[in-house]
């Protein structure tokens, strides 16, 4: 008898690259880790170019150029060109702050396919408050105009929390006014900065349900004009989200220093060994790195996940959330109603929505708390 090697995993669909953790904004729900990586640790243009070639050869189709603010890198046009030349569909995920007309022209000439622009509110006061940047509103609107004038598809991304939940309808109007083809209504997911600020951000359940209904009613009306994608707040959900589409199943996230992660928050799980793109090819990392193998598939699952009829739909939910809320990364995500912790977290969310403080810890390399 000879042992058979396990089948190699199916190839990833997309790679999200955090090119830098530098960012002019200070959003309280930033998906970057609390321990932001320093600029000196960022990998260079040539290394990114190699990673893009490896990603395309491995089967990735989309690359998301993210951060921090990706355009804070002086070589962003060269990085974009390298990704486009590798044959990847290039998506720039940006705050729109700090992108000059000249730089935008270079990005378009480099083969950029799509821009996703964040807004923190639908009026200047709300937007600039939650982006923690005075004057962001005007810069974002100017950026949106540059994108549509160039004929590129524009997505507006709106992260939703207690402070702007009442603006979901206005976000739809804003996206239409700016000529976006797509709108993301992304209810805050509580990791990293958002977890640290959860009590200040958590919205009440009834208002969340109203906002979801509003989007669902708008979708058929706007068919052919605006695509609206929605990420629902999972503390109030019945089933968990299949985080990152299932661990090590469709996506790779790469940090500014080159660490390859199964999801952007994976470093919050102690004991995982992450490989760096400086030391390994992306194919090796995808197939063999301990972090990607740790929770891939269903073998790691315990009950109630193991025998659940949705185990290959939800993939057990989110490992980082299981750790954060149940104290065990291999537990069922407490967002699932089958988790023994589910009722507790919904009650906690409801309490925070009602009585949580308004003091926010703005994202920063420095520690800073302000009302």
């Amino acid at each position, binding site marked *: 008898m000879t042992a058979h090697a396990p089948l190699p995993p199916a190839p990833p669909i997309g790679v999200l690259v955090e090119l830098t953790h530098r960012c002019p904004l200070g959003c309280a729900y930033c998906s970057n880790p609390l321990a932001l990586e320093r600029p000196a640790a960022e990998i260079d243009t040539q290394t990114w170019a190699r990673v893009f070639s490896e990603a395309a050869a491995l*089967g990735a189709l989309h690359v998301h150029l993210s951060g921090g603010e990706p355009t804070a890198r002086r070589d962003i046009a060269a990085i974009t060109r390298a990704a486009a030349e590798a044959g990847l*569909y290039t998506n720039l995920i940006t705050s729109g702050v700090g992108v000059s007309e000249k730089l935008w022209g270079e990005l378009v000439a480099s083969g950029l396919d799509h821009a996703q622009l964040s807004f923190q509110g639908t009026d200047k006061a709300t937007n600039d408050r939650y982006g923690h940047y005075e004057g962001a509103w005007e810069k974002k609107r100017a950026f949106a105009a540059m994108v549509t004038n160039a004929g590129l598809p524009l997505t507006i991304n709106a992260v939703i929390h207690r402070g702007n939940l009442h603006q979901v309808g206005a976000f739809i109007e804003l996206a239409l006014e700016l000529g976006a083809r797509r709108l993301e209504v992304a209810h805050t997911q509580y990791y990293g900065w958002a977890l640290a600020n959860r009590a200040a951000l958590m919205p009440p359940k009834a208002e969340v349900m109203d906002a979801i209904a509003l989007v669902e009613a708008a979708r058929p009306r706007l068919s052919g004009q605006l695509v609206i994608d929605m990420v629902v707040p999972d503390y109030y959900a019945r089933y968990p989200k299949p985080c990152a589409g299932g661990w090590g199943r469709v996506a790779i996230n790469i940090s500014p220093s080159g660490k390859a992660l199964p999801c952007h928050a994976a470093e919050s799980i102690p004991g995982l060994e992450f490989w760096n793109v400086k030391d390994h090819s992306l194919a090796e990392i995808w197939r063999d790195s301990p972090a990607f193998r740790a929770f891939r598939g269903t073998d790691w699952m315990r009950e109630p996940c193991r025998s659940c009829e949705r185990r290959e739909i939800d993939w057990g939910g989110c490992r980082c959330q299981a750790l954060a809320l149940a104290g065990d990364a291999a537990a069922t995500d407490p967002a699932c109603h089958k988790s023994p912790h589910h009722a507790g977290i919904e009650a906690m969310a409801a309490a925070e929505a009602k009585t949580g403080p308004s003091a926010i810890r703005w994202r920063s390399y420095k520690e800073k708390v302000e009302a």
Partner: protein
Amino acid sequence: MSIAPTDRPRLPRGVKLRHDDVRGRWTLLAPERIFEVDATAAAVLGLCDGERDLGAIVADLAARYNAPPEVIEKDVVKMLDDLKAKRVLET
């Protein structure tokens, strides 16, 4: 509104028909979306160049597949209407 015989469908900027060599199939790449496309659909999209109108596209396909134009038209209109609703095809 359904696509008309004189409309000239095209893929807008940011929407790309690509052969996915790793998986051995055609795909339509769009913002945050990947549509799997079978060989027939890829042939239809290959003709959506903004120059040909729907009538010309149907005639071309009818000749290529040796099928009645009215059958082809029905399928093509359904497919293109669906892609238009998803904001990945323009006329």
